[in-house]
C-alpha cells in the first residue's frame, strides 16, 4: 500500500500553484481543505456566540425573579440561541468535517463542485450577519422560538423579514453543500471503492445529504408562506383568513424531525471512525451500521407529529406516531451495540478523541432514552413544553452532536496541522466538559418532571435549587470550552505528527502526509482500501 500511495503522491508537489496569498486565498478559495477550515472556524465562532446567549439565559434563570434582562429579551435569547446553535454551529461544523475529510477518505482530489462549495460557505456569514443584526432592530430580535410558530412569530417587529431571509440563505447554503456531498461521493470515489466499502463517516454524510435535500426546502417553503401571510395578504396559517396555524406545525416538524438526524447521523459517522481506531479493531457490523443509518433516515420522515401530540389529533394518528417513534430505538440500538461490540476485547486506549466518543455513547443514550419517554403519547401530554424536553434534546445535541464534533476535531487535528495537540489540555477539556454538561442538563429532567415550563424567564420558588445547579453547570461548561480554544492555539506547538497519526487508524486519509498537502489524490489512489489494515 505504501508504494502505491507514494506513487499517487509523487505528482503532488504542486509548488507552482499552491494557495494564493492573503485574503484572496480564503475569499475565492475552491480548495476543500481551506473551505473545511473556514466552516470549522465559523462554527466555533457561532458556538461561542450561541453559548454567550446560553449564559444570558442561565444567568437569568439561576434564581427566581427577574434579574438581568427583560422577558422580551430573554425570549429573543432562547430563539436566537437555538437558531445559531442549530444552523450556525452544529450543522456547519459537520459540513466543515465533511469538506475536509470526505475527499480524503474516498481518494478524491477535491469536492466535485468546488466553486459552489465556496458559495455555500460564504452565504453563511451573510445569513448570520443578517440574523444577528436583528438584535439591534426596533422590536428586537425574533422572540417567538426557533420553531417560528404562527401567529406568535408574526408579532415579530422589523426583524421578521430579516429572519425569513436569513433562514432562506441558511437553507440555500445547506442545499448547495449537500448537493456537493452527494455528487462528490457518487462520482469521485477511488476506482475500487464500492459503496459498501466506504467509511462510515462518508456513509452517514451521504444519508444526511439526502435528508437535507428533502427537508431544507420544506422549511424554506414554510417560511415563504409565513412571509406571504405577513406581507402579501395570504392566509396559509392565519385562522382569521381561513388558514390553519397547526398546518405550519406539521410542515415545520416534517423538516424539524429529520433535522435532528441531520445533526446526529454525521456524529454517528465520526464516532464510528474513532472507536475502531482506539480499540484497534475493525468496526463491528459495518454493513449493519449502514442499514441502520438508512433505516433511521427513513423513519425520521414518518414521526414528525410526536413533536405536537398536544395539538389534538385522531387516536390512530397518536398511535401511529408513537409506535413509529419507538421503532427508531431499534436501528439506534444496533449502532450502540455495534460500538460496544467493536470495543469488546479491543486493545483500547483512551486518548481525547476516544474519551469524547465514549462519553458520546453513554450520554447520547441517556438522551435517546428520554426521547423514548417523550414518545409515549399519554406521558408526553405531561412532559410537553417542560424542561424535561429541554433536558432531552440538549443531551442529544450537546454530549451527542457537540461531543462528536469535538471528538472529530481532536481525532483529525494532527492530520490538519501536522502536529500532535496538547493531550493533557485535551483531557482536561474532556473531563471539564463531561462533568459540567451533566451538572447543567441532568437536573433539568427533574425540573421538567416537576412541571417547570420551558421558555420562561421567571419561575416558582419550588424550582430554585435545581435551576441554580443547572446554571452553575452551564457557566462551568461555557468556561471549559475556552480550554478547546487553548488546544487550538497551541495545536502547532506539539511534536510532529506521523502520516498515520494513530496506531490503530485505517483508511485513505491516513495515507497522505501530515499536514495534508494542499492538493491530495490528484491521481486516483491505486491502494486497496476500506479497512484493509485490519484484513
Amino acid at each position, binding site marked *: 500500500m505504501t508504494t502505491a500511495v507514494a506513487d499517487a503522491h509523487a505528482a503532488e508537489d504542486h509548488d507552482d500553484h499552491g494557495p494564493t496569498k492573503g485574503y484572496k486565498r480564503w475569499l475565492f478559495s475552491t480548495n476543500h481543505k481551506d473551505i473545511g477550515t473556514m466552516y470549522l472556524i465559523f462554527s466555533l465562532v457561532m458556538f461561542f456566540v450561541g453559548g454567550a446567549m446560553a449564559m444570558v439565559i442561565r444567568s437569568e434563570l439561576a434564581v427566581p425573579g427577574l434579574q438581568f434582562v427583560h422577558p422580551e429579551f430573554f425570549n429573543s435569547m432562547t430563539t436566537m440561541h437555538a437558531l445559531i446553535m442549530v444552523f450556525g454551529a452544529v450543522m456547519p461544523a459537520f459540513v466543515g468535517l465533511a469538506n475536509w475529510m470526505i475527499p480524503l477518505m474516498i481518494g478524491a482530489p477535491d469536492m*466535485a*463542485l468546488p466553486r459552489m462549495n465556496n458559495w455555500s460557505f460564504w452565504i453563511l456569514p451573510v445569513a448570520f450577519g443578517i440574523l444577528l443584526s436583528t438584535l439591534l432592530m426596533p422590536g428586537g430580535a425574533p422572540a417567538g422560538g426557533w420553531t417560528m410558530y404562527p401567529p406568535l412569530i408574526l408579532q415579530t417587529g422589523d426583524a421578521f423579514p430579516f429572519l425569513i431571509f436569513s433562514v432562506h440563505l441558511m437553507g440555500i447554503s445547506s*442545499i448547495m453543500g*449537500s*448537493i456537493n456531498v*452527494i*455528487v462528490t461521493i*457518487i*462520482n*469521485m470515489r477511488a476506482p475500487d471503492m464500492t459503496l459498501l466499502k466506504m467509511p462510515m463517516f462518508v456513509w452517514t454524510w451521504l444519508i444526511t445529504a439526502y435528508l437535507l*435535500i*428533502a*427537508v*431544507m*426546502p*420544506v422549511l*424554506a*417553503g*414554510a417560511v*415563504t*408562506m409565513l412571509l406571504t401571510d405577513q406581507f402579501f395578504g*395570504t*392566509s*396559509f396559517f392565519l385562522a382569521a*383568513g*381561513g*388558514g*390553519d396555524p397547526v*398546518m405550519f406545525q406539521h*410542515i415545520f416538524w*416534517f423538516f424539524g424531525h429529520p433535522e435532528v438526524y441531520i445533526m446526529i447521523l454525521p456524529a454517528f459517522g465520526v464516532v464510528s471512525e474513532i472507536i475502531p481506531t482506539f480499540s484497534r479493531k475493525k468496526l463491528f457490523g459495518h454493513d449493519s451500521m449502514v442499514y441502520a443509518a438508512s433505516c433511521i433516515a427513513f423513519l425520521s420522515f414518518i414521526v414528525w407529529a410526536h413533536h405536537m401530540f398536544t395539538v389534538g389529533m385522531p387516536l390512530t394518528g397518536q398511535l401511529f406516531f408513537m409506535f413509529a417513534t419507538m421503532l427508531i430505538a431499534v436501528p439506534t440500538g444496533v449502532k450502540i451495540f455495534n460500538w460496544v461490540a467493536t470495543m469488546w476485547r479491543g486493545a483500547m486506549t483512551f486518548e481525547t478523541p476516544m474519551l469524547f466518543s465514549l462519553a458520546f455513547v453513554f450520554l447520547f443514550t441517556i438522551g435517546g432514552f428520554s426521547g423514548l419517554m417523550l414518545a409515549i403519547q399519554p406521558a408526553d401530554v405531561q412532559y410537553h413544553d417542560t424542561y424535561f424536553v429541554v433536558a432531552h434534546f440538549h443531551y442529544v445535541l450537546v454530549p451527542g452532536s457537540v461531543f462528536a464534533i469535538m471528538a472529530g476535531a481532536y481525532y483529525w487535528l494532527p492530520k490538519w496541522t501536522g502536529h500532535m495537540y496538547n493531550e493533557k489540555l485535551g483531557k482536561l477539556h474532556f473531563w471539564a466538559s463531561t462533568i459540567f454538561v451533566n451538572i447543567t442538563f441532568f437536573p433539568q429532567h427533574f425540573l421538567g418532571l416537576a412541571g417547570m415550563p420551558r421558555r420562561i424567564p421567571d419561575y416558582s420558588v419550588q424550582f430554585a435549587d435545581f435551576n441554580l445547579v443547572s446554571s452553575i453547570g452551564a457557566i462551568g461548561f461555557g468556561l471549559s470550552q475556552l480550554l478547546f480554544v487553548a488546544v487550538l492555539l497551541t495545536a502547532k506547538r506539539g511534536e510532529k505528527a506521523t502520516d498515520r497519526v494513530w496506531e490503530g487508524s485505517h483508511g485513505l486519509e491516513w495515507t497522505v502526509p501530515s499536514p495534508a498537502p494542499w492538493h491530495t489524490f490528484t491521481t486516483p489512489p491505486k491502494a486497496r482500501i476500506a479497512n484493509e489494515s485490519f484484513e
Partner: protein
Amino acid sequence: MDEQERRKNIRRTALIAAAVALAFYIGFIMMGVMRS
C-alpha cells in the same frame, strides 16, 4: 471512466438533486395553497 464522462455524471447528479430540492419546495407550498 474518462474525465468527460465523469463531468457529465457530476452535472447530471447535481441537477437531479437540485430538482428534488425544488420539487419539495414547490410541492409543500402548493400543498398549502390547496388547503387554504
